[in-house]
């Protein structure tokens, strides 16, 4: 693993053309190192979601460069041919709502990604159980998502995001549906996991109570990012 987990340089994204063109991202630069958890904060319509989709290789930027570890993902007009495989193997996602698959139990929700990648079911489940144990939710391994509390669901979603040991995890408002105590628990887990698995984690949030936990914060407004040093006060 290189010293940077994910890096974007001069990234721009324009929707539409001519008079109706909208520049959602303008010359954005960002660098998140392995094991680091950074915040991405901005009001609605600031370009946050576009940046997240670009980082998640869901949309292709208009210009700029993005690298993941040593691998270049986008560079000007060029991009990796199989973005789907890239998302599966190199990027973990955690959403505001956990979006767990309702017909799979907890262990299979987590083990699904490696199973789809061709890992044997038993090995994938063993890896999933290991993660669930680390996240202290292994006792609900056989439960279905509808039987879990909100906090448990989010921990399972974190486990799913980590299962392939991706170099980067994108967390979109992961604490929004949780109370303060559970929100802090999730942040603590994300920090622990980032260190344990050398993963770069970008947390998009509006949640005032977790902002002081970041050591670095990227603010985004009108498609332009600015970097700020945060307090980095992690809960005990």
């Amino acid at each position: 693993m290189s010293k940077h987990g994910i890096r974007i340089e001069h990234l721009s994204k324009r929707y539409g053309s001519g008079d109706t063109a909208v520049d959602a991202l303008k010359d954005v630069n960002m660098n998140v190192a392995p094991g680091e958890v950074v915040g991405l904060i901005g009001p609605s319509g600031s370009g946050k979601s576009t940046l997240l989709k670009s980082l998640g290789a869901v949309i292709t930027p208009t210009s700029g460069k993005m690298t993941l570890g040593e691998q270049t993902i986008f560079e000007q007009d060029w991009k990796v041919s199989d973005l789907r495989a890239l998302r599966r193997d190199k990027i973990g996602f955690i959403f505001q709502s956990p979006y767990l698959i309702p017909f799979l139990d907890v262990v299979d929700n987590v083990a699904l990604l490696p199973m789809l990648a061709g890992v044997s079911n038993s090995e994938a489940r063993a890896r999933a159980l290991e993660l669930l144990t680390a996240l202290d939710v292994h006792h609900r391994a056989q439960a279905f998502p509808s039987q879990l509390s909100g906090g448990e669901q989010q921990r399972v979603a974190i486990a799913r995001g980590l299962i392939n040991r991706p170099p980067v995890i994108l967390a979109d408002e992961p604490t929004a549906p949780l109370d303060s105590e559970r929100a802090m628990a999730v942040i603590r887990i994300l920090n622990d996991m980032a260190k344990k698995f050398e993963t770069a984690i970008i947390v998009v949030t509006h949640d005032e109570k977790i902002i002081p936990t970041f050591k670095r914060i990227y603010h985004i407004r009108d498609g332009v990012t600015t970097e700020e040093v945060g307090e980095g006060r992690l809960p005990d």
Partner: protein
Amino acid sequence: MISLAGRDILHSWGKFIFTGIGLGLLIGVTFVMAGVYRGMVDDGKALLDNSGADLWVVQQNTLGPYAESSSLNDDLYRTISAMPGVAEVANVTYLTMQVRKEERDVRAMVVGIVPGDRFAAPGWPPYLVAGRYLTRGHYEAVADVATGFVIGDTVRIRRKDFTIVGLTRRMVSSSGDPMIFIPLKDAQEAQFLKDNDATWQSRRRTEANPAFNQPGSSAITQAVIDSQTTNSFVNAILVRLDAHVSQDEMAQRISRWKRLTVYTRAEMEEILLGKLIATSARQISMFLVILAIVSAAIIAFIIYTLTMDKIREIAVLKLIGTRNRTIAAMIMQQALVLGIIGFVIGKITAAFAAPLFPKHVLLLTQDAFIGLFLVLVISALSSVIAIRMALKVDPAEAIGG
């Protein structure tokens, strides 16, 4: 590799089973409709098989005796029986009517055959399941068990009573009516017999006609009246040939020299299947097409709804790198499973329902296999709309904003 479709079905099995039951009842109706058609064909073939004839000699230029009325003199069989290559000949009459037993009546085809000891003669039922064949010249009957009559019952045909002396099975007309065999003379009379008032009126009109009732020639009047009240016609002559004789050749010879129309077994089958039940077959085919379309619409709607319910999960699956073909396979497998559940329930429903129908419903194993194949094809095609919709889902939908 995990089966997403299988896990989804196991998780919401109730939804699949209940939908499958609804679909199965529809498929069951489809099977029964196909069985009704097969039953009609089978009845037609049974009619020909059971007649034991190689040739059907009928009135010239008619499609008799089953598809059109045909009338032949009952002494014509003698000249045919004298032709080389002819093994056996028998007169036969057919009349479909209501046969009454006390307060109950049954629609049946009354067949007139020559009684006696020629039990294997054309037109006779090939076997009995109870009782004996007709041995007396009058007032005895052999009935198909489907009539519900039993040995010893007395049934009324026109103005005469007949005693059931034997029972046979699967002797039916082309429209599925059970047969009742009675002596030929009684059958001829039954076809021709008028009620008393009509007979009296006919005699009066004959006597009033100066051409038939000339002074001093009362014998002429009596002869005309006698001819009016007797019937010397039959509907067909059934011919069985020697083993080495060609049906086509013999049919040509009889029609050429006797000026009659003669049908071989193949031609008679064509008349029965191609003309007599053709309209019914088309009617049933239309029903089958409509039922297939309705089944497809139901499967498509259910699968579409189930997929719509999972649209967010599908977006997440695509975002985290699930292949399109994995998602398409999940949806198609669910449609196929739904189809298979429907097929199994439909087959069971048809098997239990078929005997309850008043006419012969024949469920063939080959039809079940064809049905299974069609159900799978329809299920697969029905899932296309849902698959297209799922593949169009943008993985970005999983990310807010």
